[in-house]
């Protein structure tokens, strides 16, 4: 009994061994096949990309024959536009519709995040040659970092570039070649304020920093937030410092040139240091909302529109965002330039608009140029204005603003008419330290004294200049 049991057991073992051998073989086969399958899946991935472009146009051809309008070329082209998700799109969309009607060039919007994360998306896509046909991005110092000569199409000799104002061209140029068209209206940095509350409290627009502080004191006394801080979106913390540049250049006219050449520093130039001091003062006097470190840009605009906060140091174009969310409140919002220490030198710091650049890797460069041509034409402006009220003047020759612009924009235009404007430092110099938002948060929340912060920022600037290989550092 025992023996027979054992022998039967042995045969079972043998069978088992056999089974495990075949199993091993099967396993090997499966592994091999799956490896091959993965490789195959990767390769057509590359191949597909190459064939994708003509494919896209294939169905469009039939579209073209159906389209009877004579102005439209027979092929429909679709361009892609990479743009930050915090941009107001209404005006742009208006232009895009007009372009599609006229040239049969459709535009597809690809959204990317704003701020530093957005910068990374743009840089990565440029580096991998995967940029959209049109790239919407800052002009000035941030644009310089993108290596424009390699990545974008040179527009210097395009006839339509004569429509663009020269001061804008200088901010999208590298080595005297122009690469971009103005994507937006000119922005101004300063203080948005709630006119209703100003009227209630009997305040007038401040012309000096001390008057501004006096206004803040009264607003604080009335139980409202005098200055809205929105440091959760840390880029917003820089506004007081950057918008002070008109006052800096009023006192030290060649600061930008010296600064670029490593001769002037924030810490050693009292006029420049004032910007940090102002930021510090606002916090020290307790004018800010309590939760300013957790408040976002959108929440801040809400406070301003509803009048719980009265001042918001911001870009003038934010009124478009207010209009989008609180259309009935936008007429309560006014704007003034950041005041300096004396009343007779009062003027506005101006941000040139973002640019739209054409990617060198684009397959539709001709269409993109047509797109750009329309964009800077009077027709283009008309299409823009029909969908979105401009947040400031255009950087395009002969463009006039409609009469029904927002009150805040009217306030802005006064400074332009009087000629009291200066471009912000970041458009005069390619140098801007990447840690400025964080440093401003530290000063603006009272963690760091202005002089210390200025020194730290100077080091940050030095680091950038060295890393990016600017001459003279």
């Amino acid at each position, binding site marked *: 009994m025992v023996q027979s049991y054992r022998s039967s057991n042995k045969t079972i073992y043998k069978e088992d061994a056999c089974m495990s051998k075949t199993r091993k073989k099967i396993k090997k086969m499966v592994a091999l096949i799956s490896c091959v399958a993965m490789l195959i899946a990767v390769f057509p991935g590359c191949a597909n990309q190459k064939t994708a472009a003509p494919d896209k146009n294939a169905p469009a051809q039939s579209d073209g024959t159906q389209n009877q309008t004579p102005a439209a070329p027979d092929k429909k082209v679709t361009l892609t536009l990479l743009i930050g998700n915090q941009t107001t799109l209404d005006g742009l969309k208006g232009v895009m519709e007009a372009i599609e009607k006229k040239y049969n060039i459709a535009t597809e919007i690809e959204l990317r995040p704003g701020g530093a994360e957005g910068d990374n998306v743009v*840089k990565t896509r440029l580096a991998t040659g995967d940029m959209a046909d049109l790239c919407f991005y800052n002009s000035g110092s941030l644009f310089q970092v993108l290596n424009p000569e390699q990545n974008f199409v040179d527009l210097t000799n395009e006839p339509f570039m004569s429509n663009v104002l020269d001061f804008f061209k200088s901010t999208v140029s590298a080595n005297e070649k122009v690469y971009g068209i103005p994507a937006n209206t000119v922005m101004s940095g300063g203080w948005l304020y709630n006119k209703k509350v100003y009227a209630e409290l009997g305040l007038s627009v401040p012309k000096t920093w001390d008057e501004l502080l006096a206004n803040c004191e009264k607003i604080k006394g009335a139980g409202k937030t005098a200055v809205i801080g929105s*440091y959760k979106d840390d880029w917003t913390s820089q506004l007081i410092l950057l918008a002070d540049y008109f006052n800096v250049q009023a006192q030290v006219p060649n600061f930008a040139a010296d600064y670029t050449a490593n001769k002037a520093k924030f810490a050693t130039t009292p006029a420049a240091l004032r910007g940090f001091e102002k930021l510090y003062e606002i916090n020290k006097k307790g004018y800010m909302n*309590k939760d300013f*470190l*957790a408040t976002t840009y959108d929440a801040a605009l809400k406070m301003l529109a509803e009048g719980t906060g009265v001042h918001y140091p911001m870009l003038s174009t934010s009124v478009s965002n207010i209009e989008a969310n609180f259309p009935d409140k936008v007429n309560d919002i006014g704007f003034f330039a950041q005041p300096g220490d004396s009343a007779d030198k009062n003027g506005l710091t101006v941000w040139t608009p973002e640019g739209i650049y054409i990617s060198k890797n684009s397959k539709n460069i001709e269409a993109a140029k047509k797109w750009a041509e329309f964009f800077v034409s009077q027709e283009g402006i008309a299409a823009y204005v029909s969908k979105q009220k401009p947040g400031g003047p255009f950087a395009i020759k002969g463009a006039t603003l409609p009469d029904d612009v927002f009150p805040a924009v009217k306030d802005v235009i006064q400074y332009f008419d009087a000629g009291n404007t200066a471009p912000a430092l970041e458009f005069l110099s390619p140098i801007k330290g*990447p*840690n400025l938002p964080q440093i401003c*948060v530290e000063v603006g*929340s009272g963690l760091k004294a202005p002089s210390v912060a200025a020194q730290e920022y100077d080091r940050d600037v030095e*680091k950038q200049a060295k890393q990016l290989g600017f001459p003279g550092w």
Partner: protein
Amino acid sequence: MTRWTLTDWQFIGFENYITFLSEPSLNIGFRNTIIYAVLTCGLKVIFGFLLGTFLCTNIKTKDYLRSVVFFPNLLSTIAVGVAFGSMMHPSQGLINKALAAVGIIGPDWLGNTKLALLSVIFVDVWKGVGVATVIFIAGIMSIPQQYYEALMIDGGGSFEKFWHITLPLSRPAMNSVIILALIGGLRSFDLIWTMTKGGPGFTTDLIASIIYKQYAAGFYGLSTAGNVILFIIVSIIAFPLYRFLTKSEVDL
């Protein structure tokens, strides 16, 4: 060693490393990273072990509780960061509203410079303790029942069980948890980035988030140097610790 863009480079020796180690906005990360790694690791070990022992006892809802403990780990870190970020809002956040309901004025969890890092650590522990618990449960379950029986015959109580058997014999599990949690803490990035972005100012910057910021600014050379430094630090801490821990393990 070099200062490079994607197309061009220049040899500058150790300057990137010196910059990285000497600048205050860069080297604040070292202190924070160590605090972060040690605290998250320690808390995960303690809570994980207590939960593990508790969930190995004979309680009726054992299976349910085990899945509850493990649940946070299933969520994406980004989602957890964003959710806690809004819950910790000082005036509109859920946590402070709940505290206000019982009459406590909650602090600004992520805005207070002394508290911000601890808040993020708390969230990391909440999320990561599930894995630690699971490893501990596995370790405790693998302790042969005979040891406990022997102890009971010798007249030991449940505390002796815990102290003389469970604790020393789950050392292998504990070592895995310590090593995993510590390395995880040293290279942690996603949670801090979604919750504070290193802010306010630089107070919650970790080495990883600093490296990312350098990369974002286009300082590829500097961020490469930072990654090398991070690698060296993690190796310096992890290898000797691993050897020390495995040496002091008790054999079953």
